[in-house]
């Protein structure tokens, strides 16, 4: 089983993408998509990605809702800064945040979240010291931002991946 399906989640995703792209659930396409999914899984073994397990699938839902709310809020905040009349001086700047998260998939998800919320941008991560560098458009209060990243996202990601 392990030799046939080395990455079950990846293969399932590939099959789902194939069916959605072709907009059909006909047996022929399911067969073709399954063949592609198996092939994709075998190709992935050659790349030897780091293995990881999702420990708390239920936390994913909570994280998704949290991120969705934050995306809407920060969209409004950034739109307000862009249209700011009269334009106040924006205090943007770089911010270093120490992280406990080390799982590469957790970090990748965190990068997606931080980039998807306008107003924050991932600049770099130093794996040796565990320090994440962000650029923040509206950097008035550093502790609020550190609390947001660490308290809201990192805690849930640690629950999910570690």
């Amino acid at each position, binding site marked *: 089983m392990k030799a046939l399906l080395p990455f079950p989640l990846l293969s399932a995703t590939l099959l789902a993408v194939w069916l959605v792209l072709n907009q059909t659930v006909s047996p022929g396409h399911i067969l073709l998509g399954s063949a592609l999914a198996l092939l994709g899984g075998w190709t992935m073994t050659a790349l030897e990605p780091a293995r990881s397990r999702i420990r708390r699938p239920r936390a994913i839902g909570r994280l998704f809702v949290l991120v969705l709310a934050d995306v809407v809020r920060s969209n409004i905040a*950034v739109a307000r800064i*862009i249209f700011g009349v009269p334009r106040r001086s*924006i205090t943007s700047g*770089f911010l*270093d945040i120490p992280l406990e998260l080390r799982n590469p998939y957790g970090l990748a998800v965190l*990068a997606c979240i931080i980039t*998807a919320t*306008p107003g924050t941008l*991932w600049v770099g991560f130093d794996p040796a010291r565990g320090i994440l560098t962000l650029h923040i458009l509206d950097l008035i209060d550093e502790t609020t931002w550190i609390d947001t990243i660490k308290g809201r996202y990192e805690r849930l990601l640690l629950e999910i991946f570690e």
Partner: protein
Amino acid sequence: MIASPDLPAWAALLTALFVLLGAGLTLTGSLGLLRLRQFYERVHAPTLGTTLGTVFVLIASIICFSVLQTRPVVHEILIAVFITVTTPVSLILLVRAALFRDRVEGNARNFEWRAPSSERNVTSAPTEDRSS
């Protein structure tokens, strides 16, 4: 005569609402490219278009085609997933390239660090001759 698909009233109004919201947010983000003064501030602006702007237009497209073809049409979700996964990669690379170029040219003083830099690997990269 303005061409538009023949939808029932509720679907037409919902589609119109989401298309306008999405286009408006994208326009706001692109105007940010003009209004903000520093490169590192301008990088934030287009993310309005790549997050909610795209999502709203895609929702409008899903509503329109699902009603037109009387079955769920959800392949637009693929674009949302693709954009969410690729935007971080391109923006992180772009910001790192900009930081590197600023360091090489020695004008790293015109932006503000709130804490010590963690980008030692960037500063120690070989400095070749680069013109903008």
